[in-house]
Each structure stands twice: as C-alpha cells, then as structure tokens.
C-alpha cells in the first residue's frame, strides 16, 4: 500500500502540474479538494483520465469520483481493489 501511495502522489503531481510540490508535501489523509491541496473540478476530470489510463478503472460519472478522490489514501484503497492493470 505504501508503495502505491507514493506512486499515486508522483503521478498526481505530474498529471495535475503541481510543480514545486514533492510527494512529501502531500499528506496521505488530507483533503484533495476545497481546503487541503485545493484541487478543482478540472483536476477531478484529469484524475478520472489518470484512473483509466494507468489503472484501467472507468468512472463514467464524475459524481462517483467525489468519495474516491477524497484523499490519497481513499484513491489508493479504491485502486488496489478495482485496478485491472
């Protein structure tokens, strides 16, 4: 799990252009949206692309993403249970 968490942090930094940030700057349990990392609706859509591209997970409805994209930990848990690649 720790390995997946680090991998996700690196991928998210890259996909969302969080330049000037390192995996250490992202708390695994912090909120990604709103307060916390301050991601927005376009970032959420880009995360949906990342899930499909890198883990073979399809989220048709952005509303589904809300619970999954709560924190790095919630993403990691979802990915490890649902990944197809």
């Amino acid at each position, binding site marked *: 799990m720790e390995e997946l968490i680090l991998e996700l942090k690196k991928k998210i930094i890259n996909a*969302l*252009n*969080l*330049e*000037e*940030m390192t995996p250490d700057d992202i708390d695994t349990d912090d909120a990604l949206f709103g307060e916390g990392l301050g991601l*927005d*609706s*376009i*970032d959420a*859509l*880009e995360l*949906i*692309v990342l899930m*499909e*591209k890198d883990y073979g997970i399809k989220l*048709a*409805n*952005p509303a589904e993403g809300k619970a999954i994209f709560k924190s790095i930990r919630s993403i990691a848990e979802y990915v490890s249970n649902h990944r197809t690649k």
Partner: protein
Amino acid sequence: MGVTTAENYKALREGRSALTSYLSYSGRDEDNYVASRFTIEQQKQLMVEGLTWFESLVYSSVKNALLDCDIDVSSQRTLFVISTTKANIEHLQTSEYDTLEPAESANRIASVLGVVCQPLVVCNACISGVAALVTAQRLLESGGYDNAIVVGCDVISHFVVSGFQSLKALSPEPCRPFDIERLGLNLGEAAATMILSVNKPQTVSWKLVRGAIRNDGYHITSPSPKGDGCACAINYVTEGIALDTLSAVNVHGTATMYNDQMESKAIAASGLSAIPINTLKGYYGHTLGASGILETIITMHSVSHGELLATRGFSEIGVSGKVNISASPVSVSKHSFVKIISGFGGCNAAVYLEASSENKEDNEFREDCDYSVAHSVKITPYSIVVDGKQIEIDTSTDNILADIYKRHIGSYPKFYKMDRLSQLGFVASELLLNQEYPRLQQCADRAIVLFNHSSSVWVDCEYAKSIAIGDDYFPSPSLFVYTLPNIVCGEIAVRNGYHTETSFYIIPNKDENIMHEVLTSTFLDDSLQSILAGWIDYEDESHFEAELKLIIKSK
C-alpha cells in the same frame, strides 16, 4: 431545419428537433453521441468550391441574409464580424492549416463575399455570438459604420466532440434543459447571420438597444453558483426598463447541471422570475459560436408572431432559482426581450432588444471615449520592457515564461496548470498591474480586452495529440479547456477579481487601428473606467509576443 428564419421557425413550431444519434469518432461505443448535424445531402448542396465546410456554411448564411436587405458589402462602412469558437479546427493537423486559421479563414470568406472591411473574429467561448452582437452594436453606435454583418458558426468535429466528452458534459440522449433529470448538453452545427444597420430599414422592426458582457471572476470553467456575472449583465441591459414590459428571456439553457442552475439564480436575482423564459437547445443542441445569434434571431421572430416557443426536453423543474419555464408554447403580447448566454472563461453576456414602433426616431450616435495609457508591458522571447524599462531575462532556459514567473511573480501555483497563452497573459498582466499602486482587486469597472492572430494554436496541437486514435486515446480535459483563447482573460479576471467585460478578438495582424476602434467603442459600456488591453499571441517557444496596456478613460 432550414435555410431561412421562416423555415426554421416553422420546424420549431411543429416541435421538430435536429438532434440525432451519431457513431463515435474514436470507434468506441461509449463515445457515440447525440448532436444536430447537417446531412451529407445538405453538405453537398451548401459546399462552395475553394472553401472548407465551416467557411461554406458562413458564406451561405451571410449570402442568404443579404438577399433580404439592401446594403453595400463593398463599402468600408460595412463591418464584418464572425463569431466562432473553433472555426476550421478539424483541419488542424493538415499541412495547409496556416491558411485555415480563424483570421485567414475570415479573410477568405470576406473576399468571396466581396466584403472589403477587415473582418473581426470574436472568440469568447460559448458567449461569442452575443458578444459579437454587442461588439457590432457598439461599433455602429460610435458612428464608424453604417451596417454590420454579424455571423456565427461552428461545425462538429472530433476535436470538439471529444473535448466535451472529456469534460463529461455531453448527454447520451436528447438534452433536457432545466429538467430535474438533465444529463448534460448536446452539440449542434449551425450558421446564423444578423444584419445590423444604423438606418432604420423598411422591412425589419427590431432594435438591438443595449448589450453587456460580464465576467464572474470566479473560475475558468465552473460558473459562479449565484450567477453573479449573468445577473450583472441582465441588470445592465435592463436598467431603466420596467421589467413587466418584457415579453421573455431566451436563456442559454444548455442542460448541464451547473449552467441551468446558475441561470435560474441569476434570473431570480434580477427580478425576472415571473417573465416567461425558454431555451432552444432541445431543437438545435448547443451550436457554440452560432448559438447567441441563432437564438436571438429565432426569439425575435417568435415574439413578433406573439409567442414564445416551448422548451423542448423540459418536463419537471430541476433548478432552485424561481423561473417561469414551460414545455408548451406561451402567448406573448409585448414586444421586447432579453437574450442571455454564459461560457467558459467565466464570461456571461446579455442583449436587450425591442420592436421599434413606426414613430420612433432613428438611432442616436454616441461620442467615443478617448483614453490614456497608464502603464505598458511588452514581452517577447528576447526581452521584457515594463513602462519603457528593460527587465533582465534569461533566454537560455527551456521555458522563459516559467522563469519570469519564478523571478518576478511567484506564489500562484495555478500558473503551472495554464497553457502557454494563459501563462504569457498571466505574467504580462502581473508585471503590468504591479506598476499600479494601489493595485486594484475585486473591481467592477475594469475590462480585459485582448487580441491575437494565432488563437490558441499551441494548446490546440497539444490537445490534438491526446486524441490521436490508438491504444493511448485519452482526451485531456485540462488541455481542452485552454483551446478557447479567451480563457486567458478568465485567468486574469479570476486572479484579480475583475467582474466586468472580458473579450477576445482574433484579427489578421497586429493592426493598431482596429484595436483602437474596438477599445474606444468598448468604453461605451458606461460601467468601465479602465481596460487591461492589448495583443497577446503565442505560437511556440520562439514565437510569442505580449504587448499589454492599462488604459484609463479620459472623459
């Protein structure tokens, strides 16, 4: 649906919709979509030799509109304004694209039509059509032209369909505006032309009284939840008018969750809850650059016939702001209406039109406002000059804009999410506004009006890579958003909290006269005291230029 207003109106009254299912461009079933498109037969009839499909549609629409009026297209006093979001984008990856870019395309259409005036392309995302009417109305009002041909058009392409799909904005079925079960929008293909004239024509009796463009200053894609910008635009155009004299409001009503909800709040906030509203998206889909003009024309025609068309697709109210919307046609007896529209980049626009009675006097002209330049900045790959002073630049770095950001600006991480055009606009506007003391924040009297030649070509090419058909087919939502060049205005508006007009124009070259003319007429919007204005073009890392000015109204 038809080539004339009457034909279109007849089809709509019969309840016909042009929305149909289409197979995906990607070959994947999940990407099949519903849209309104011309049939292959219609395309064959409308194609003009030497012109692309987009250009042929624009040409045919203008040509048909001109049949009904007596104006001299070959006069310098006939303005030509084209509203489009993506013009010939389906030809992006062909070798001749440099001759098909919006500015070149506009020139070619003008020359086939025999129009001599330099065409002005309005590229303001979804509000482009109404923005083009506002621009034309102001340029006529300032006395430089007698007539204006205002045409809006966009065509369906893999580029645009995949982009809206990546934003999860498309409905898999015909759209249901304002409905509780709405699932998103459908795209549509159309061209529509309105001819504006300062001399009251014999045949037509409508007057475009006033228009406004207002930015939410909130987010580049999500509308302000309370509909602030939209409400401000409505309030400006209806100022001094008894609201109960309005026949109707024709809304944008795309059937996305956020747009319709936002519009309902704006309508309620503007005191228009009792006025009948409708949207035409259930018939045509969202026709992008054509939408504002097409829908204004149809609404004029229907109000003239004493009715407001039914909102097709609507059944049960699904918005929280109180609105008077109906799935059936409504009789109207009065003769004026408001058209509203909103789009990416946080922009909103409204126009107020009224049927002009026989005895009303001709249009009045208003004197243009002059302006003075308070501050200026110029950035090229080789130098930065702020208020005449050279600033040091490291030309050896891979990304000069990021270098300028790090050295002179900083603490705005969103910078790294922007495309190059927006990054250029951001650093240039920051250097410019840092000259101002105290620096204005959250203001409602400063517009952003920018011009360029290359539209959003750099990010267009980047996005196109993400939709190359193959195993790696993942259209990028964050790149697609920036393929609207007016997003740079939105970024600056969000950063500074500017809530007034944001406009983006594409012109064939950096023509100071055209820019001056547009800027002086922009000041006819009474709320403005200053404009962040200028040229901003980004082709690639060695070909870019920003020359921005902060101009202040002189009288």
